[in-house]
């Protein structure tokens, strides 16, 4: 624990001016908030785009939107939500705030690089948003950006939009890499006295493994982005085959490239990306459930190994996104097996969350409500994944609304529910005030039941055969009985209600910042280190003169013989017996 010794002797460089404290800040907590605010802002843009899309689908007469705008909204919504909101929020937001506090460090190990990370992230967002203002508008290639279509005439934004999108992604990956190296190094090197890897909260494990995935997966997107940029700017043919251009009436100059190569590269990134979002959510929700059920997390070691195994397996399942892509059909056997195998450790996590509730003492606080809603939503999304992962079952459902419903449940709504639960949980540490409980509950019920009503019935449009990415369905016999349109209208109404209800959350965040009930340092009576800081919100350097000393894991709730129902990680074995042999070796 060399870092911990040094950290206690080194001088703290307190920021001295407003600028160095809040703008060019190197403090992980300020950077976390900067990351989060940017992510939430750009997420709101994507939310508005989705409302526009839903209006076009549910009530096409009532919105003046053409197919170009529809496809642009669709593309930007998807890309923003997956990359610029969820990835940034979980790693840059929660990772930055919680890792140093939970492992007992003063800050990230490379604070300056950490600062660069958030500014590169902001730059990537600005480049992305700039594409709304260039000739031709943003790209409408679909968030998967499949060539050749992404860079040819006939797709919106094929001139400028796609270039800005690729450049923005490249900048984002630079930002994510700088952040990621920090998170991994901090977890490995900067844990405080007594904080072994197997005493870390699952939040840290989830973010740690997700960051490793990001560091290994993003390069695939990075190179494919550069290759596509070269294809579109200087006419290379990495992904561009011989193809005909109807508007020019001749073949284009490209020759010999492979569109499927791009798909392999994209999904080699894209599937781990699902877990880059999901693993932090798994970790965070484990901690929320344990704290609010007042019970030690069930099967901690299994939970850790499940995270690691899921992380490893996530690199060998990518082609399940490509069962009908025209790749060699025999690949289907391999990828169906690996994909369904990944369900085993994932199911184990669900069981262990439930077994943590079992014989607990469950407080239905707002964070707990969101956590339970996460389990339900993730369960539905996970089970429908078993349809799509099993190659032959995927064939009729692929590219239908079943897929849209599945991935929104499993990696849209489920992680977002964890985001909300976590914000309700940690807001008191960040601001020193509680979020308003009544508004929180109202926000919860609308969001949980509303999203379930949106996405559960949507699967059935997929069974019906309704293809995704359709601007309109006029004139198709098979998918346009009036009933399908009525379900679409219902889904749109629910989506608008859920969308507007997010204003409750925004209002709560602002209102409670000024008027919320003061929380004290540990309002949930939790055991992990971030609740034990000398000040709330924690000051620069987090811990005062000496770092906390850890004696036990983060889940000592209801320890037999203890005076309180929770035993902080800093409590020594003399005060409360340590039962680590029960759960750790």
């Amino acid at each position, binding site marked *: 624990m060399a870092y911990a010794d040094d950290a206690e002797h080194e001088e703290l460089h307190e920021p001295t001016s407003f600028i160095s404290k809040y703008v060019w800040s190197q403090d992980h907590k300020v950077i976390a908030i900067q990351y989060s605010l940017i992510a939430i802002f750009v997420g709101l843009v994507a939310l508005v785009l989705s409302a526009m899309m839903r209006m076009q689908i549910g009530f096409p007469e009532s919105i003046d939107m053409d197919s170009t705008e529809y496809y642009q909204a669709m593309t930007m919504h998807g890309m923003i939500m997956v990359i610029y909101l969820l990835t940034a929020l979980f790693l840059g937001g929660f990772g930055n705030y919680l890792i140093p506090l939970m492992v007992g460090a003063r800050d990230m190990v490379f604070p300056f690089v950490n600062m660069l990370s958030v500014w590169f992230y902001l730059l990537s967002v600005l480049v992305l948003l700039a594409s709304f203002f260039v000739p031709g508008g943003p790209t409408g290639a679909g968030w998967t950006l499949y060539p050749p279509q992404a860079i040819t005439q006939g797709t919106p934004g094929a001139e400028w939009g796609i270039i800005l999108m690729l450049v923005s992604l490249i900048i984002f990956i630079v930002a994510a890499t700088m952040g990621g190296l920090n998170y991994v190094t901090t977890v490995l090197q900067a844990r405080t006295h007594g904080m072994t890897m197997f005493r870390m909260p699952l939040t840290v494990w989830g973010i740690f493994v997700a960051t490793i995935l990001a560091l290994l997966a993003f390069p695939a997107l990075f190179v494919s982005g550069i290759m596509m940029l070269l294809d579109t700017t200087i006419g290379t043919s990495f992904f561009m085959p011989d193809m005909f251009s109807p508007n020019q009436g001749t073949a284009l100059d490209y020759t010999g490239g492979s569109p499927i190569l791009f798909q392999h590269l994209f999904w080699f990134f894209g599937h781990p990306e699902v877990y880059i979002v999901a693993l932090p959510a798994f970790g965070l929700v484990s901690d929320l459930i344990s704290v609010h059920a007042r019970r030690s997390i069930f099967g901690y070691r299994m939970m850790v190994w499940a995270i690691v195994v899921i992380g490893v397996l996530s690199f060998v399942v990518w082609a399940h996104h490509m069962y009908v892509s025209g790749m060699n059909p025999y690949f289907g056997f391999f990828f169906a097996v690996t994909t369904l195998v990944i369900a085993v450790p994932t199911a184990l996590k669900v069981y262990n969350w439930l077994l943590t509730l079992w014989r607990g003492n469950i407080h239905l606080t707002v964070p707990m409500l969101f956590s339970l809603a996460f389990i339900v939503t993730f369960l539905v999304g996970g089970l429908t994944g*078993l349809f799509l992962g099993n190659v032959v079952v995927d064939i009729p459902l692929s590219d239908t609304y079943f897929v849209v419903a599945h991935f929104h449940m499993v990696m849209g709504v489920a992680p977002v529910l964890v985001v909300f639960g976590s914000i309700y949980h940690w807001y008191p540490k960040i601001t020193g005030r509680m979020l308003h409980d009544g508004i929180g509950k109202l926000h919860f019920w609308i969001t949980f039941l509303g999203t379930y009503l949106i996405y559960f019935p949507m699967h059935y449009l997929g069974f019906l055969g309704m293809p995704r990415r359709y601007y309109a369905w006029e004139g198709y016999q098979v998918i346009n009985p009036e009933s399908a349109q009525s379900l679409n209208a219902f889904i749109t109404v629910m989506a608008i209600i859920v969308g507007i209800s997010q204003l409750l959350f925004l209002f709560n965040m602002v209102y409670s910042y000024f008027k919320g009930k003061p929380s004290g340092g540990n309002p949930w009576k939790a055991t992990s280190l971030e609740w034990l800081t000398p000040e709330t919100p924690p000051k620069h350097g987090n811990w005062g003169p000496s770092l906390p000393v850890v004696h036990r894991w983060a889940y000592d709730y209801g320890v037999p013989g203890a005076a309180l129902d929770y035993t902080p990680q800093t409590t020594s074995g003399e005060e409360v017996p340590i039962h680590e042999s029960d759960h750790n070796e």
Partner: protein
Amino acid sequence: MAFAVILVAIVIISVLFHFLSPWQATPLASNWGSIDTTITITLVITGIFFVAIVLFMAYCVYKYQVIPGRRSEYKPENKKLEWWLISITTLAICGLLAPGLVVYNDFVHVPPNAVEFEAVGEQWRWSYRLPGDDKKFGRTSVRLMDDRNSFGIDPDDKAGQDDILVAGNQMHLLVNQPTKVLLRSKDVLHDFYVPEFRAKMDLVPGQVTYFWFTPTVPGTFDILCAEYCGIGHYNMRGQVVVDKAQDYEEWLSQQITFADVLTGGTVEGLVEQGQRLAASRGCLACHSIDGGPSLGPGWLNLSGSEESLIDGSKVLVDADYLIESIVDPAVKLVAGYPPVMVAYEFSDEQLDSLVAYIDSLSSDDLSQPSTQPTED
């Protein structure tokens, strides 16, 4: 309590919805009933897990709701229970995977008696090719594609001479005949998807993909493009007509071969040339010629009419306006249509022929051919 009740309600409503929902798979019209069976197996197994897990959660929330002063049980691990759960899950996964892989094995093995046809996709229309009497398709290349040879067939390849070309959006198939569809794209990714057949596959430019099925029910079925292919993706319509033997033979006898195309088109009027161009260059993907709805302004009775532009002004549709709208579509945008058309390059003669064709579709010009698309 309330939360537990709502969880139980979610289970009940979800299960009821499944059985009462009017939105179910379309009636099967191919041999892939086995795919439907795998879906049913998956629904049953995942449904059991869904019900059991959510009900157990409701039980926990009800039974272990907070009682002030109560301590939770301190039992961080139960190896035996965890291994039991892992084993049950693994069994269930095998129950999903085994039948799935067996059916997939059928899917990837095309039966030897399957006949072949080719579906060609381009933005945003379908055309089709049959191998002809020699059962061999002629070689193709995008470099050979032009107005006369929209399939890009190599004229020097003997196997291509008898290939039967179906230029319209509609393809006929023989009922109960195992059929292998070869998929070829001229430009970007597309996907050949007939919901009633269950199976689908992408078209990838630069390679030929395939899958097989046996149509089992006579009738007309929509082909949907199921891989995003640009602004007209949703409008890339096609149809499969499954015929009994006699109807199929009759349809087949009316189709032309590549050799007919090579030799037949020497004497051609302007209108016919325009008609051919409109089909081969994809104009008809977005402009209807029968008065039906389409992405761009329909051509029936267009010539000589007055169009309202987005700036509120009106314009008379004459030859100059039509030509301008083809070579520089962004200049005068017609109200009510998305500004999605890209500029097209044609020779002056070709432009004249297109205008002549569009003129011929106006009813005041009775001397010209019928307004029905010939390829239908």
